[in-house]
């Protein structure tokens, strides 16, 4: 998992707007952010850096197999 968890979300939606790869969405009812498309996370941490309440924790591991040039 790339984004590990979101705790203490205040539902401002900034992370959803900020994510360059559209990984996050807001729950329609609670307005809280959740990880909808984890495979597309590029682990850039922009969502975490923009979060006003530091609610996002990110791990360096990708959720899908990684293709690299040199193994």
């Amino acid at each position: 998992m790339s984004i590990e968890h979101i705790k203490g979300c205040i539902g401002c939606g900034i992370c959803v707007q900020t994510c360059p790869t559209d990984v996050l969405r807001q729950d329609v009812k609670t307005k809280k952010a959740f990880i909808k498309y984890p495979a597309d996370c590029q682990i850039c941490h922009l969502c975490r850096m923009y979060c006003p309440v530091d609610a996002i924790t990110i791990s360096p591991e990708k959720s899908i197999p990684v293709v690299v040039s040199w193994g």
Partner: protein
Amino acid sequence: MKSSQPKPDMSRRKFMALAGGTAGLAAMAAMGLSPEQGECSPNIPAIDVDKMTYAENEADVLVIGGGMAGLFAAVKAHDAGSKVMLVSKGRLGASGQTPFAKGIFAFDSSSEKMTLDEFVATVTRSALGTNNQVYTRQMAEHSLARINELREWGFFESPLYNKNFTKPIKERNIALKERIVITHLIKENGSVAGAAGFSQDEEKILIFKAKSVILCTGAGGFKPNGFPICDLTHDGTVMAYNIGAKVTGKEWNDGHPGRAKNAAACFDGWHGMFERKPGITGVEVHHDLGVDLNYKVYATGNAVKMGPPGAGGREVVAGGPYVPEEFKRRNGPPQGEKGPRGGRPPEREGGAPPPGMGEEPVGGSSAGMAIHKSEGLVPINDKCESNIPGLYAAGDALGSYMAGAIYTQIGSSLAGSAVQGAVAGQSASEYCRGVEMPAISEAKMDEVREEILAPLKRESGYSPAWVTQTLQGIMIPNFIIYIKKERLLKAALAYVEELREHHLPMLRAADLHELRLAFETANMIISAEMKLKASLMRTESRCSHFRLDYPEMDTENWNAWINIYKGSDGSMQFEKQPFDSWPT
């Protein structure tokens, strides 16, 4: 919604069981296809295509892209008197590569020891003639003025750019639309007439009518692991190519390595650099981050150890890409796109490795991307204008060859985006004064709408995620685009042509996120084909293009850029344009 399609709340497994029974599932499993993962399977839409709404917008100048180039294009077009609209796939200042660029070059003639003429000559020597000297000079000449504007907007006060990018846009009341995926450029009567795309947040297709369009869409890659460009897929280049624009620079390669462990974690690989405030760099010309280090890894099979002299990075390997004597590294690792002078570099004794170059580096973290500003639309003059009337490009979307086909001046990538954005904004505004608002025919709008909706309407097809991963498997291995040779380029091309001919027309999408992925995947396939064909055509090695079967520089035949355009029969055409010239 068609009755043959399952309801959105029905699970894929349940649908498969109903449609094909367990025997069908077993057969698919035997073929290596998992219906659960949805590589090739029925499309179960999460949205109702028939309820998609439409909206039309109008502006004199439409700027596509919300990075550094887009910011200046919008501001300068507005200040020149045009009605401007800025549309971005992401959020202003928080998408593309701009959020991660921390060094910006300023040529300050009052403090530099080198004159502007000497600077251009030095870059030209390092770039082995591949740079467009007009754009090299323009970048340096205007850099300080743009930096002073950025300073006024608060750019140097925060590591996050959204707030300070928003300031000049809000002050000018420039219309801003974020999270809009532009999929089409529209041409009518030979000139650009606007663009079209869809929202990622609401089920809406948007048509933009404009006298002029400026592409500030960045470059792209194959959603590589370890480099923050997974939202950039050469969208602008491919859209422009589709309406007849010439594009260039596809054979060059950015040579950024990444880490062996957790290769996809670009934040970690860049040692927290993303959290730094930006800073200013002065003249420091290099010949960096081509494929020379990657060649060394290829030849020895070992990760190249970075670090101070004596740490293993100075091992000599015969052959490989030519580096001009004047620019050979003598003091530790290459500096590449290292952060600003005076900033906080990653802590390492005896020298700081640039992004992605700590620990155990492996090549190819930015696979699919060329050297900044060496790929993109072919400019026909120094005004960032393309061969399509009304269509401009700036920054990484413009093949300006400002730096050449290798990294020459640290920080010039971001400075070049600012400078070119401003130039394109002013030029586009001037162009608008002489033209009427174009009309887009109903037939054209219908055609574009149908193309946008096609992946959602497909009842079955290929998942963009699977096609992308297949494309990565073809293009990313070191022996395809890094260490090139005819046999392997042709082999990869056969696969990519198959994806283009057969799989691209069958990309499917269940929701707006997947619709975006479908268009991104299609653009990456076209870009891969361009990259392989241009690499085959350039039968020499120079700067960031290395052919194992043509390892020498060939100045007799190859003092030329390669331009790519769509022929009248729809096929991909190639032509040479001599260095230091404009298209004829």
